[in-house]
């Protein structure tokens, strides 16, 4: 995002009328995309649900950790009693097999962990990936070599090995969700860095980067002002996908001992324990899977919208002369 987006309107007293600021243009472009707006609402709702989890479960009158052994059929492996996984007025989405814990409560509480961890981890990944990718792409041969090799190392080291290391180093008092987000973020930035580096190398050959160099900007400033906006599209697209991936990685880490502590629920954990129940208690699998899917879809559509809105050319250039009669943005 260019500084123009943030700069205050100048009161220069110049004769010309003040131009629409970048931020305002961004909003204008975003507003024209209905799908993106719907997606934004969905994302906001999800975040709201996560934040309001205690409130929602209070309304339902349940909590995510209380066992209800009477609600499951112990002789049949603990499958919920009743139709549709034990859906009832008390348990809106039924109960978990074996334990009888309330699924609605677990789902909304799970949203907190999953979304929180995934967003935070993605943030760290993107930060590291973009920083390292740009530095490698712009730096001299030595910098590029060092960073590219470091990227190779991080990609090559399996998650399991690295998380073991981090686990051993971090004292056990460290807050778990933060640790999980950090572990994922610190371990899985390799792909982002590679994409960004490749893109940077392409972009830096362009004359406008040369012009910026002549302006006297530092490399860092060039990266931020000239390259970042051009990188936004691929990075944002990728980040929207990193979020669901991170949600599943969180589940995997739980098995390794660095996940969030039980009985805290997370969508990833629910998915991993639900997969075997797909036949006996399908809703147990479908609920977290559906929630994840909706999240991913909304994030992707929103990401697309933002990407389009960020590109001043997108609205007009994309369709140039396609022969399509429809007017308006793509």
């Amino acid at each position, binding site marked *: 995002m260019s500084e123009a987006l943030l700069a205050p309107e100048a009161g220069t007293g110049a004769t010309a009328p003040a131009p629409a600021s970048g931020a305002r243009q961004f909003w204008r472009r975003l507003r024209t995309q209905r799908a993106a707006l719907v997606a934004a609402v969905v994302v906001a709702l999800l975040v709201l649900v996560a934040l309001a989890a205690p409130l929602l479960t209070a309304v339902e009158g349940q909590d995510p950790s209380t066992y209800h052994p009477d609600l499951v059929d112990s002789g049949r492996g603990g499958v919920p009693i009743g139709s549709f996984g034990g859906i009832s007025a008390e348990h809106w989405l039924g109960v978990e097999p074996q334990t009888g814990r309330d699924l609605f409560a677990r789902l909304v509480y799970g949203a907190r962990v999953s979304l929180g961890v995934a967003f935070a981890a993605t943030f760290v990944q993107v930060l590291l990936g973009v920083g390292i990718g740009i530095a490698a792409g712009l730096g001299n041969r030595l910098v590029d070599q060092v960073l590219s*090799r470091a990227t190779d190392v991080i*990609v090559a*080291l399996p998650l399991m090995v690295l998380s073991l290391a981090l686990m051993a180093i971090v004292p056990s008092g460290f807050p778990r969700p933060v640790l999980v987000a950090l572990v994922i973020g610190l371990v899985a930035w390799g792909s982002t860095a*590679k*994409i960004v580096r*490749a893109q940077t190398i392409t972009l830096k050959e362009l004359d406008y980067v040369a012009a910026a160099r002549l302006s006297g900007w530092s490399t860092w400033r060039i990266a931020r002002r000239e390259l970042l906006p051009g990188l936004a599209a691929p990075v944002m*697209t990728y980040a929207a996908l990193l979020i669901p991936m991170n949600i599943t990685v969180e589940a995997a880490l739980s098995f390794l001992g660095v996940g969030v502590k039980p009985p805290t629920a997370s969508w990833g954990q629910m998915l991993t324990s639900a997969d075997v129940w797909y036949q006996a208690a399908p809703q147990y699998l479908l609920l977290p899977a559906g929630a994840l899917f909706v999240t991913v879809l909304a994030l992707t559509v929103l990401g697309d919208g933002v990407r389009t809105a960020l590109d001043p050319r997108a609205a007009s250039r994309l369709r140039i*002369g*396609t022969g399509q009669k429809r007017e308006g943005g793509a």
Partner: protein
Amino acid sequence: MTGFLLRRAAGALVTLLAISVIVYAVFYIAPGDVAQITCGPRCSPAQVAQVTEQLRLDDPVYVRYWDFLQGVFTGRDYSTGTGTEHCDAPCLGLSYQSDQQVTQLILAKLPVTGSLALGAMVMWLILGVGTGVLSAWRRGRVTERVLTAVTLAGTATPVFVIGLLLMIVVCGQLNWLPFPQYVPFTDDPQQWAWNLLLPWLSLALIEAAKYARLTRASMLETLADDHVRTFRAYGVGERSIIGKHALRGAFAPVIALSANDFGSMFGGAVLSETLFGLPGMGRELVHAVKVVDLPVVVGMVLVTGFFVVLANAVADVLYAVADRRVVLS
């Protein structure tokens, strides 16, 4: 080109050394008493001491690391109790657990994971890039929306869910494909592919969305470029513009990502190997980590690293061949 290869090789060596050092360090601080695990839970302190000596676990880490390095470059001899066994360079040591040479262990698992990774890559490229192209072409239409939703559903579902469901339906109920098992390519190429089809498909479904979105985004970016306007103004059809000119812009990021995913699949295909019962490297690695079988872990991680480096070098060459503006360096 030779210069490029030499520099790449040197870089690879540094990368691999760094990896091995990290793994040694990690396992030095990680919990788990190697000798106790190797000996068995009920081993007495005396027996544990015996094993510790046998595996030379009481040597300082740097000595062990040095021995390891020596083995890699010159080979090592090991006692089997009744005799000695020579482990040729590059010797990655013996597994603590099974007393097998790690090099041979890896050579046995490599074809499995290699087959899995290669096929999956082909599938995800076809599926992902194909979907990406279609959705760039039909952008904003129903086709795109449906495609997007389908591929995203793939991403949002972990491999053990997709794989298991596919296996139940395709193998168990419909009986279309056999329950996967590894048949070496050299034994029967047709059975090899037939058996691996399902694992490939499951992995591709997971990855496809990533490639689809990336392809689509890069293509839309290119579609806004001036040269696309030129071809439109010359009556070149949308299909050719999309399939030829815009797709070309997606080449670099797709190749870069593929290289990474392909490389890291060598150590990271744990879940699918476990699910489909394929005796590959990922599964072995996870097991080795669990039982703190350091030589196996180091060996496996090094081989994974090797493939990551290799895949990236290949990607660079491909990229440079395709885009002559890039000078290999």
